[in-house]
């Protein structure tokens, strides 16, 4: 039985139907006690699926894995309600299909090989340099005048509407510094 105060229960239960419940909960046990079979949660965050931005309240187990997902009753957008996807965020975090290792597939190979981050980052950087340098255009002629265009058409970027603003910002910054112009993502579809 987790140590959540009655007050916390009230907060967490104040979902869509909360107003019906709240006046009566003070003596809700009704003579029989059924302890909660798991913790309800105390970590507030935002759902990663659609663009409503619903608030979630998460509980985690001793390994830090999600053990419960509730709607955040304080979040003004969803007031505690959720949809099937946002509730399933628990399985997203805990899926055995999630990737935990860098994988590399060599040309013509029919399988993945596990690699270290160090090797991978270095190898990608080398390929970026090669692709950029081989395709880089410093200037072009427009109406017989040299215009500095500083671009590479040899590298493209796609993504990511599921990423945080800060991820997107660093992506846009790094790619433009490289001269990438084939820069697109989900908003185009």
């Amino acid at each position, binding site marked *: 039985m987790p140590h959540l105060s*009655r007050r916390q*229960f*009230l907060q*967490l*239960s104040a*979902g*869509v*139907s*909360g107003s*019906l*419940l709240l006046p*009566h*909960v003070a003596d*809700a*046990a*009704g*003579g*029989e*006690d*059924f*302890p*909660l*079979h*798991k913790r*309800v949660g105390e970590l507030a965050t935002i759902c990663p699926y659609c663009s409503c931005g619903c608030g979630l309240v998460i509980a985690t187990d001793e390994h830090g894995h999600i053990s*419960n*997902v*509730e*709607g955040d009753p304080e979040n003004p957008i*969803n007031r*505690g*309600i*959720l*949809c*099937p996807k946002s*509730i*399933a965020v*628990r*399985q997203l975090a805990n899926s055995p299909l999630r990737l935990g290792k860098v994988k590399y597939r060599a040309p013509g190979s029919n399988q993945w090989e596990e690699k270290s981050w160090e090797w991978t980052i270095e190898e990608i950087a080398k390929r970026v340099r090669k692709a950029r340098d081989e395709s880089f255009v410093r200037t072009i002629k427009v109406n017989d005048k040299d215009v500095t265009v500083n671009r590479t058409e040899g590298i493209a970027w796609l993504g990511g509407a599921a990423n945080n603003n800060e991820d997107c910002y660093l992506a846009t910054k790094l790619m433009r510094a490289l001269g990438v112009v084939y820069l697109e993502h989900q908003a185009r579809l």
Partner: protein
Amino acid sequence: MSRYAMLIDETRCTGCRACQVACKQWNDLPGEQTRNRGTYTNPPALSAKTWSMIEFNEIETGDKVGFYFLKRGCMHCEHPACASVCLVGALHKTPDGPVVYDDSKCIGCRYCMSACPFGIPTFDWDRGLLNNALIRKCEFCVDRVSNGLIPACAKSCPSRVIAFGEREQLIAQAEARIEKNPNKYIKHIYGKDEVGGTSMLYLSSVPFDQLGLPALGTTPVTALSEQVMEYTVPFALAWGATLAGVAAVVRFRNRGKRIVENEKSET
């Protein structure tokens, strides 16, 4: 009379199934392997792994089509037949309303399954008959309710279909809604009086039998089963036959419902 109930206003439901997944999430139930059978309804029926689900019903009237959604799960009867036929007291109704189940007492006889007029309790076939087999059904999130939280399905519902609260107040609320929108609702609160009353109360804009809820009388099924049990208890060997009798009564009562269900095009 139990204290709490849920008012399920199916005229507001959009079939998003937040309630269905919220139930699995809170109760730590696994996903079932399913296939698309020409309908959004999935899994096909309640099971030991699925205690609450939405059934999708497409109903055509002339050239008009309606798309209706039924939240199916334990009705938490005021006089639960399942509890009354349980030989070992594994099922009982708490004063708050939930009909709860005790794993440690169950002997896996499945009489409750035969007795339920709504066909709700399911058997956990995965565990096998001899391996501490279990009956499974919605327990009204009894642990949540007992701790001042509303049930997981009601908490999640985006379209404000499911209201949780005191039964008497919800009945008053349901009556007020019918009165305010007489053209929208069928003038009937399903579960208010069915089989002596249930903790699940439904409002609908289409007849309840079309939605998939059986047309039942107001007599508690327990009255029938208890009557039968009175005579048979001394004759332990005849239990099976007795319960088959109860089941027959229930089946008879449900016959109309099944015909309706079979005729309905699944969508």
